[in-house]
């Protein structure tokens, strides 16, 4: 794989169904009610249940290693959350290599849903 600054990653689309929101929250052992109980989420000022941040980190890892290969080594995942990813949203990940030093690469990642940018971040990864 030839990688240079500006290399685009293949996009990844995630359907954030209620089942997806709930199962990822539980798989990350996050039992905050806003991730599985719509009534509680609404009471707390949200429109619906929404993805938790541990899942965002996991999805970013999946997105980058799906491109970099199974033996790529993830060194860091730094993300900032924007708009929520509520149940029934479609989340689209895009990424671009922003720096390249030998096999050590920094990828800028963005995930957007219908409300705007949900995740913006960078991943440091060592390519195989």
């Amino acid at each position: 794989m030839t990688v240079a600054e500006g290399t685009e990653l293949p996009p990844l689309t995630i359907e954030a169904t209620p089942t997806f929101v709930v199962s990822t929250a539980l798989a990350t052992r996050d039992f905050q009610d806003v991730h599985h109980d719509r009534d509680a989420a609404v009471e707390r000022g949200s429109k619906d249940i929404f993805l938790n941040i541990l899942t965002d980190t996991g999805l970013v890892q999946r997105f980058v290693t799906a491109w970099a290969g199974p033996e790529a080594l993830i060194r860091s995942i730094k993300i900032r959350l924007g708009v929520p990813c509520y149940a029934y949203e479609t989340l689209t990940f895009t990424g671009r290599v922003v720096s390249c030093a030998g096999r050590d690469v920094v990828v800028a990642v963005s995930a957007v849903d219908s409300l705007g940018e949900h995740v913006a971040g960078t991943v440091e990864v060592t390519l195989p």
Partner: protein
Amino acid sequence: MTIEEAAAKIAAQGESAPRQARDPVNQAMVNNWVEAIGDDNPVYTDPEYAASSVHKGLVAPPAMAQVWTMNGLHGTRADDDPLGAMMAVLDEAGFTSVVATNSEQTYHRYLRPGEQVSATTKLESVVGPKKTGLGEGWFVTTRTTWYVGTEAVAEMMFRVLKFRPPAPLRPQAPAPVLRPVISRDTEFFWDGLKAGELRIQRWGETLRHPPGPMPPDGALDTKPDYVVASGRGTVYSYVVHHHPPVPGKELPFVVALVELEEGVRVMAELLDAAPDEVHIGLPVVAAFVRVDDDLTLPAWKVAR
């Protein structure tokens, strides 16, 4: 103690004591996680592939670092957990909701099944109050380090927004109605409505509505009485009120000037006709809308 003072006190306590993961790094939790996230990287799940890979054996997804030490469904935070302590301070101050805003994880190495992880956390900063799209709140930043034995294996800067949710929109109680000014000259009319009568002022043989202090001919020595109208009449003219809002009324509503059988015209809301159903000449009957003990309003219903 202010929020800033409470934050300074919590930050001064430094790192919490190590908090042990409930379980060692294990394949079952890895399998649940990769299944939910949809990550099919075989280094996490396929022993043969993993053995021949750069890892020389199965490893856990690095993004699971935080998962191992989550408190769980019935877990309680340790007494010295700075994030828990800061959340309690902000809950108390009315900032009851929380969303994560930043997570910056650095992985020093991949974890392997069987390794026992522990974590320590310290409070780094508390900044606020800030106005955000979610409501007013405070940004609380902590730094967590994960260890296997004494070896630091991962670190995280974690920031949450602890905010006061805006009051949920609830149906508003009906606003009080506009109340008429009732004078000695008009009191009989309002008393009549309370009794279910539509009373019309009479000066000798002459009916007058709205009631006034003297007869149409201006004779100051006559006294009025009233007749009780039959309540039957026809629409003489009307308006459909769309705007502005009127306390106690749902828009749009119809206000009709009705010519009574007795020959005078009385204005009131027409209750049961859609705006496009109303027309001049429409037969109506009087109705009485009780507001409370002191007030009943006149109204019309279509004579059907």
